[in-house]
């Protein structure tokens, strides 16, 4: 059993390359050809899928320990295999797409720095949750419980910080244009060397333009200020999916470390 501080440092060391990858993607992603973009998307998919799958295995192990006899063949059939991995890969593919597009469309160094801050945050919360829950949760389910608490807290903190930034950041004024003008205005601003990436960025930008247009035209008509505020929060939190994908990418990286250290436990 490694000392807790050592595990925390190890997690941070494994998360460092992820930080560099994020900065590299943000700065140079638009210059990459189709093949490079595809490779980045696939590797992100596999990383996220790995994290999902390993956590699934932990949950299944805890469930099997509680409900299935140790000598039963169900211990092997239900522990999580190729089919579970395949489903996780499909889910991870969608998250990876949101992550890659979101990383390329970050609104400046402020958001980038916020995401980098989440690296030590998630490592610290994971370590702290594991320690705090140790006396209360079964050892079979402890890792998964710690992950759930970590992800929930990090997601809340990160989304709150991004929401606060979006609340005060200047965006395009669509109050005097039509919906299609707003969508096209946003879509036309995107460019990339990769044609596939450019199309994906344009679609994402158009969707953002539609959200902004709807918010600027629809929300002021609401009679209740609280409802309008809630509406703005929902619009500005549209990148929550990107945050969720980012966190699962971090989880995948941290679980890959454990896999690397103890491959037989996978």
């Amino acid at each position, binding site marked *: 059993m490694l000392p807790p501080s050592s595990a925390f*440092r*190890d997690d941070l060391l494994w998360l460092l390359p992820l930080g*560099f990858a994020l900065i590299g993607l943000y700065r140079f992603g638009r*210059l990459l050809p189709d093949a490079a973009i595809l490779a980045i998307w696939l590797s992100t998919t596999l990383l996220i899928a790995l994290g999902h799958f390993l956590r699934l295995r932990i949950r299944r192990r805890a469930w099997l320990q509680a409900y299935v006899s140790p000598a039963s063949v169900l211990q092997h059939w239900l522990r999580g295999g190729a089919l579970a991995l395949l489903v996780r890969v499909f889910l991870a593919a969608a998250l990876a797409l949101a992550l890659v597009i979101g990383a390329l469309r970050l609104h400046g160094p402020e958001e980038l720095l916020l995401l980098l801050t989440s690296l*030590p945050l998630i490592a610290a919360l994971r370590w702290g949750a594991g320690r705090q829950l140790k006396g209360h949760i079964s050892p079979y389910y402890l890792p998964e419980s710690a992950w759930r608490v970590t992800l929930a807290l990090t997601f809340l903190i990160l989304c709150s910080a991004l929401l606060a930034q979006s609340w*005060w950041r200047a965006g395009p004024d669509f109050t005097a244009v039509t919906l299609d003008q707003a969508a096209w205005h946003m879509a*036309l*601003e995107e460019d990339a060397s990769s044609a596939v990436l450019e199309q994906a960025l344009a679609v994402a930008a158009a969707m953002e333009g539609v959200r902004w247009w709807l918010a600027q035209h629809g929300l002021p008509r609401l009679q209740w200020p609280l409802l309008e505020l809630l509406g703005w929060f929902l619009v500005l939190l549209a990148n929550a999916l990107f945050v969720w994908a980012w966190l699962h990418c971090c989880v995948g990286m941290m679980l890959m470390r454990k896999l690397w250290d103890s491959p037989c436990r996978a």
Partner: protein
Amino acid sequence: MPRLIPFHANQLSERLQLTLLAGGFALLVALAWDAVPAHPTGSTAMAELRFGGKAYGLPLQRLPELEHLTRRHFQTQEAAKLRDVTALLEQDIDTLFTQAHARVPELADWYYSLGGEYTRLMLPVLVRGGVLAADHLAERTERMLFGEQLLADHLDTMRGNIEDLLLQHSIASRRAWQADVTTALEGWGAVIEGAENAGINLDRFSQRLIGYDSPEFLARMTVSSGAGMGAMAGPLIWQAASRSAAASGRAAATRGASRVAGRASSAAAGGALACAPAGPAAVGCALLAGGAAWLGTDWLLLRFDEARNRQALEASLHTALTATREALGNDLSQHYERISLNRLQILTAEIEHTFIPAYHRRHRTPGTDPL
């Protein structure tokens, strides 16, 4: 599952781990601090833009340059406008207060006249009787110094002059910008014939600029320029004079009280000397003669007072005028600087065509328009 490379991160020494972590995160922050995404060069994406009734096809990369040109133009113009307004302001205020300083002897003459003396003495009675306003003396002071007009009236005239200057400047600035943009568009882009619905309509921005040049908009922005200071000028100057009078021991009440005995005795003596002690006109004659003696005594005392203290009174009036001029000048300068900054913010927001949710929310509260 055999490990390809038998390596544990925990095999690195703790110190090396910490060094790697510290260096790694420092490098991450440094790289992210001013990270700018690189865009592919040679993009052929074009934007359609409408301006001056024509449609232009412009490379997308030129749009930020157009925005920069516009922003820089209006920043430069606003700075020049503020310089001209400040110069006009200084000139007008200097003229006004030079005339006021020149009229200080006239005010001092009134102060040491019998009319002035008795106005001050009788003021409480006249105010109670509704003949004069409570601030009559302050208003009289202000009118005598500023040419029979209140300072606030002069400031209204000045504001009108400044509004005319702002209007001329704004119109010239807008026309210069339109000429610059037309030149830039003809150099960067190509005219598209028959394009009805261009993507970016700069004519709309031009229309808004015309709105910002309107006299009503300018009047709304420049209202209350120094009105507070102007309204306070008369009382401030009068208070300075009164303080000076009190400091030299010549408070009107004191002077009046000290003269009462003199007046009474001299009036009685004058009446007795000039009129017969008895007869039908004796009382009237005594009253007239006594009154003349009263006034004569007062006049003499005023002359004595003036000889001793007029210089101090004039000095205090000059000091009060100088202080008022400085405060007014600072107040008005700051006011027009705020107006200029406010207008520049409005124009910048129009140029960038931005929308900040927090400010949009604040617009719902009356009277808190951040722009």
